[in-house]
């Protein structure tokens, strides 16, 4: 049995910014290895795992995709004082950065640091008493200037350094829970499937570059050629500053996301599965793009029926993302239930448009 909390805490303690997912990939591969029949790595770095089904001959394939890349920062320049200029990777609000702990990844090892906000009087007049934008924020490693110049170079990656924190109500706080929480949910699913029969082949992918280019989403389904692809991601949980229609309650189950990246018949099948298994859920809607790997996967090859399942999370893209562990476990369980219930003729029988029936 996979221990969800320690595994996830380990995952969110590892670097792995978009385009540089290596450390996360290794940990995920180690966790998946005993649960699957085959592991491989795509040319862009996505981790692919195959767990064969019990059906005869060439079995239909379902792809579960959760992205393993994290948002973060990257060094742009080094000042004479040995401070680091930075910019962002993946979508960072500069207002959460001042005084945040970070880890600078250099050729000669990792350097802890902190994001420095210069006092107003050192800033241009029009930048004072306002949130300090990225161009004026710095990273201070506490090291002498000559050592910084020797060890750090422009292009070195900077991960958020806030450590995981367990809070009340079985919740976990940390950075990169978007989307390593979903990787953990897929892991829970694989673990459960190791004790349950399923006729379909199951492909699990820990994808790369979701936050920037959807590079993993566009490429993983190409060779796998799944009949169904499911993107597992996080969505905005209700909380301080977030209460509108785009949000879902925290700790009350996963969301089934309805919109143009979601195949209507798949949506119904997932809904039936959740109800049959008595798993709580809410439905959220998105008008255009789901902001998940489904956007890429849907248009790979001749097009793939996709589904989006999300885990509510507060304070997305901050170092204090907050998620319910119960919701993660429920998501893993939903995926396993759905897969265990898939008949060999599901595509022909169920994956139909209303007008075809």
């Amino acid at each position, binding site marked *: 049995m996979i221990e969800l909390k320690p595994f996830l805490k380990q995952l969110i303690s590892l670097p792995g910014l978009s385009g540089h997912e290596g450390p996360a990939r290794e940990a995920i591969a180690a966790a998946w290895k005993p649960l699957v029949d085959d592991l491989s790595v795509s040319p862009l770095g996505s981790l692919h795992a195959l767990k064969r089904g019990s059906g005869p001959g060439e079995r239909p394939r379902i792809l579960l995709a959760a992205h393993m890349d994290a948002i973060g920062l990257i060094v742009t320049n080094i*000042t*004479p*004082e040995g*401070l680091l200029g930075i910019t962002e990777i993946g*979508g960072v*609000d*500069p*207002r*959460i*950065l*001042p*005084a*945040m*702990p970070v880890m600078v990844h250099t050729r000669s090892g990792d*350097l*802890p640091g*902190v994001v*420095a*906000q*210069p*006092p107003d*009087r*050192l800033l*241009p007049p029009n*930048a004072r008493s*306002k*949130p*300090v*934008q990225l161009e*004026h924020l*710095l990273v*201070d*490693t*506490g*090291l*002498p200037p000559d*050592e910084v110049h020797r060890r750090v170079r422009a292009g070195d990656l900077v991960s958020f350094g806030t450590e995981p*924190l*367990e*809070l*009340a*109500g*079985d*919740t976990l706080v940390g950075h990169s829970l978007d989307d390593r929480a979903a990787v953990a949910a897929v892991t829970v699913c694989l673990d459960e499937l190791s004790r349950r029969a399923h006729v379909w082949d199951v492909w699990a992918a820990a994808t790369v570059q979701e936050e920037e280019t959807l590079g993993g989403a566009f490429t993983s389904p190409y060779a796998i050629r799944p009949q169904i692809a499911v993107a597992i991601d996080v969505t*905005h949980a209700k*909380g*301080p*500053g*977030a209460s509108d229609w*785009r949000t879902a309650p*925290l*700790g009350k189950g996963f969301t089934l996301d309805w919109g143009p990246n979601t195949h209507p018949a798949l949506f119904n099948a997932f809904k039936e599965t959740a109800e049959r298994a008595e798993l709580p859920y809410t439905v959220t809607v998105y008008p255009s793009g789901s902001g998940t790997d489904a956007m890429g996967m849907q248009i790979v090859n001749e097009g793939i029926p996709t589904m989006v399942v999300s885990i509510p999370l*507060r*304070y*997305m*893209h*901050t170092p*204090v993302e*907050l998620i*319910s562990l119960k919701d993660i476990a429920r998501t893993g369980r939903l995926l396993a239930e759905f897969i265990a219930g898939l008949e060999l003729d599901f595509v022909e029988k169920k994956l139909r448009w209303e007008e075809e029936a």
Partner: protein
Amino acid sequence: MTEQPHTTPPAVGAEQLALLERLCNASGVSGDEGEVRKIVLEQVRPLADEVQIDALGSVLAVRHARGVEAPLRVMLDAHMDEVGLLIVSDEENGLYRFVKVGGMDDRALPGKTVLVGKDHIPGVIGAKAIHLTEPGETENKISLDTLRIDVGPNGGKIKPGDRATFATRFRQVGPSIFCKAFDNRVGCAILIETLRAAAQSGALDHLELLVAFTVQEEIGARGARAAAYRFDPEAAFAIDSTPASDLPRYDAREDGAIEDAGYNVRLDHGPAIYLVDSGTLSDPRLARHLMDTAGRHGIPYQVRQPGAGGTDAGSIHRVRAGVPSISISVPARYLHTAAAVARRADWEHTQALLWQALVELDRGILAQPR
């Protein structure tokens, strides 16, 4: 000058670092200094002749002079409190509204982890996801009114009136220290080590040492006033920490020179001696004594650029008939945020300067014209 036994100033080693770590990790928001007081009491009780807690909660420790008639009464001061947060209402489901205690920049609050109350219940100050912001919204400050401390659903046991501090844990990196509450646990650590060295060496036996670990400095230097009244000293040294703004300036020259910037003080330049701040005109005889002492012993020091800011000296010098006072601070960057950066060497040099200045302090210095 009276003849003194030969001594070297107290150094900063593993034990001192371990003590500063404990002091910095303790929660001690102004008005709620109990955790720090406990550590201070445990440290000073074996070193002082008299220890008491005054009406406000400051720890007052006295080490009497030995073998001297009418010794000089010298007050050493460091505040125990730190800036932090106060829970003001319970909004249910583990969400709490809070206000600031002491001067903090609102811009450094979102995205930080905190510890609430005496049980150190962990929580976070979240921020709206960037995906949910309106165009241009990130140009505007996040209003304090919209921030909450989130301890997780149904996280109980917290009530209005509880204080919260940043959850940052003390860390050493190369020549530096990263921590919360460096302002002013470093001052507390320096006074404890000064007492320890005095007890061990006898080098300060010519002085009546009146050591105050004060409360509520960050909200008006209140503890120091009551402490100074009770001690009735002839001279006072406030040991504190002051912001180093030695960062690049937007209009820095091509070579990055910042010589002309308002840096206040700089890291790696040693203890900062105060001449003028917004609360005190330092006693010039004490200022001269500190600079001369530093020069004689080769201890690096810097003059804090005259300007805004204040220390307990602002309260102490106006107590009773007046007390000749001065402040010495350890420079640190990003004070009053979740993570300050300071240099171990600046701390050690501050400790050494205070020590040598005390070893060589006598009434003759104060008898000089002001």
